[in-house]
Every structure is written in C-alpha cells, then in structure tokens.
C-alpha cells in the first residue's frame, strides 16, 4: 500500500514488458506524464496499447510511434482535419500499422471509472445512432435507450500530479486533474510523476485528489514543458 519512491522515470518503469496496456493521464498538455512517456520511449518497450484522451500533432505520445513501439490506441481525439497537423500516429494508422478505438470523451472517463470501481459497464446516451454504437448492445431503462459501454482497465497507469506524500497520496492542481484521478483507480500498477514529494501529513486531507491506496510508485521529476496550441 505504501508507495515506493523511484529516483528516475526510467527506474520507475522497472518490470514493464512488451505488449503492455498503458493508461496515460493528461488532456492535451495538462497533467500528461511526459517524463514517463520519454522513459518508455528510451526503454524501447514494444507492442504497447495506449489508453489516453489524445494522441496527435504535438503530443508526447506520438514519440512512441517513432520506432513503432505503439500497437494501438483507445482514445477520444486521434487525428486532426488539417493535413499540416498530421502526426506519425496518423501516418501509421493510414498504413494499418496501428489500431484505433475511438470513444466519446465522457464515455471514456466513465469506462475507466467503471473499470476502477468494479462496475460492469456504463449506460449512456452519448454515441447512440453514431458509428460509436456499431456492434454494441443497447439497453432500455424506464423507456429510454442507452448504449452499454464496457469498462476499461490497464496493466499500468502513468499519471502526473503536482505533489505526492511518501505514502502515495496525490494532490492535483488546476486542469491537470482530468483523467488522472480515474486512471489511478483502474490499473494493476500505478506510476506517478510529481513536481514534488513531501512528507506524510504535508498534504491537507481535504486536498488529497487520489488517496494513497491507489498509488504504487512515485517519482519526483521536473515537468517537461508542453507546447501550447
């Protein structure tokens, strides 16, 4: 339960093997575990299935496409209309080298929450009558039709927070929360990069965004600036 502290992002990936299914926190740049993504790139792990809000032009995740480490993505935002903003992921998708499962953003958040919270799925109206609904079960409740969306879990979640205490409690800041709190609940191994590791008790119990029970590994590492759009 008590988190283990690692010195470098590379050390924090100890034991991660090819074919791993990884959730990456973050929404555009805010809250993305950029140090861990770079470490995964250096590690050379292959056959990665990524679960993240966005992969595209300007995103650090695209770096995993440079040497074909990525096998596929489950995400909400993968390609841009403008050809000038095509990414390596786009190119590999067009060539059939990677797979893509697109899911609406609210459904994405809720599927992860279901995966982490022991629920069997999500009943939502989002996506009904669209390509997202193809091949999926619909269920009627009180005269309304809902799409049944399945839970999402991963082997590893890589997330970012502002501070962690040595027990593993996390404090988030601003819009850098996004998918990090739900992802922290939905993976077998949760690795967190933070601006600062503090003593137990230094984070106000009222401000803990992810309780320590969810966190396995923490690592203090200055954030890598993300270019704004």
């Amino acid at each position, binding site marked *: 339960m008590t988190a283990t502290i690692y010195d470098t992002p590379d050390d924090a990936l100890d034991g991660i093997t090819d074919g791993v299914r990884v959730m990456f926190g973050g*929404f*555009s*740049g*805010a*809250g993305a575990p950029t140090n861990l993504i770079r470490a995964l790139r250096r590690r050379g792990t292959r056959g990665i299935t990524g679960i993240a*809000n966005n992969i*595209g032009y*300007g995103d650090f995740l695209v770096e995993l496409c440079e040497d074909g480490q990525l096998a596929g993505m489950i995400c*909400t*935002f*993968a*390609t*841009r*209309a403008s050809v000038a903003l095509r990414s390596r992921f*786009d190119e590999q*998708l*067009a060539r*059939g080298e990677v797979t*893509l499962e*697109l*899911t*609406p*953003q*609210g*459904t*994405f*958040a*809720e599927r*992860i*929450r279901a995966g982490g919270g022991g629920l069997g799925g999500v009943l*939502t*109206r*989002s*996506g*009904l*009558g*669209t*390509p*997202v609904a193809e091949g999926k079960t619909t269920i009627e409740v009180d005269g309304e039709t809902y799409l049944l969306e399945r839970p999402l879990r991963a082997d590893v979640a890589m997330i970012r927070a*502002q501070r962690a205490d040595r027990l593993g409690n996390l404090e*988030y*800041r*601003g*819009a*850098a*929360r*996004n*998918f*990090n*709190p*739900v992802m922290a609940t939905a993976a077998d191994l949760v690795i967190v990069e933070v601006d600062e590791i503090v003593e137990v008790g230094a984070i106000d119990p009222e401000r803990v*965004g992810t309780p320590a029970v969810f966190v396995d590994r923490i690592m203090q590492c200055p*954030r890598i*600036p*993300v270019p*704004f*759009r």
Partner: protein
Amino acid sequence: MTAPQGLTRELIALRVARELRPGMVVNLGIGMPTLVPSHLPPDHGLLFQSENGILGLGAVREGGDGYGEIDPDLLNAGGQPVRLALGASFFDSATSFAMIRGGHVHTAVLGGLQVAANGDLANWTVRQDGGGSIGGAMDLASGAQRVIVAMEHTTRDGGSRLLERCTYPLTAQACVDLVVTNLAVIAVEAGGFVLREVAPGVTAAQVQAATDAPLALAPDLREMAL
C-alpha cells in the same frame, strides 16, 4: 444560383452571443464557437464550462501579454492557456462529463458539418482508415439542455449543410435546437426547420435555395439585428 455571402464568421459569433443570457452555463466547442466571448459584454454573467475540468473559464491568454507566466495547468479543452473567472472551480473528467450528460450545462455551442431537419448533427469525420476525433462533442450534443450550431450554410462547393438527413456520420441524434449560419437563424422544431431570421440583405427564398430541406417561415420572421 450562387448563395449570397451573408455574415462573416465574426458576425455569426456575434449573433450566437445574443442567444446567451446572464446565469447560463455555456460550453463552447472548438472552431467558430471560440469567437463568441469577444462579442459578449464584460458583465455577461455567464459561466463557461470547459470539458477538461473547469467551470468559470476566463479569456484565452496570448503568450507574453504582460500578465505573468502562462500556467501549464490552466488550459482550455483546445489546449490554449486561459484565465479563470471569479468563482471558478476545477474537477476531474468524470465529474465534468457527469455535469454535461446530466443536463447541467445549459447551452453548448458547437461547430457543425451538417444538421438535419430532425435535429441530427454531424460535426466529426471518420476517415477510411478509422481515424477521427470525437472529443467531448457527442456528450455535449446529447447532454446539453440546448444545442446551438454555428456553421457556414453551405460547403465550399455550394452544397447545403442543412439537409433532410445527414450524409456524414452522426455526432448525436435529434440534438440541435438552433442553427446560426452566415445566411440565417433557423430553429429545429418538431416539424423540421423553421426560418426565424435572415442575414441583412438575404431573402427567405435565397435561404431556402441554399437549404436541402423545407423551411417553415416563423410568424415573426425578420432580418437579424446585429
């Protein structure tokens, strides 16, 4: 027949801004909707929701605007650095979309590719290879109490974006309440499109000619006041 030019993108945004009333919670989609705030009075009394986890979004910040460092934890859903309004709050994505799906966002202003007479909206593209981007649009379109679509009335080659049925993949079914285009303000009601306002210098006949579905004329059909 070539459709008249009608409004600029900025004027479409201005017309959309007129739909917003103090006290409303509003989510603005990427693209033309992001032009709306610059056409609001300073005391607009709105709360802007950003689906990445902010209620009380302020203005977009330009780099080096003299107001200090840009905050990398304070971005809007389009990834742009923003300010906060007084009374703002932060929350995670699960909470943000509970807010959206649960009908707590009053108005979503979305861009569009096509709107059908039954209110169906298509505003994303699926490529042959399966590529595409949904983002929060499906949840916003089906969850917001009121959906306003801001878009050009016709495509570059003159085809209508207002149709009997969408030919592009849908974003959500029967979700659109109002369409504001360069030519007109059109409500989507039970019976189909209702022409409410025409752009200055544009006639109802010209709007109908640019629309691939029948337009009923509102009893108080008038020219837009801009």
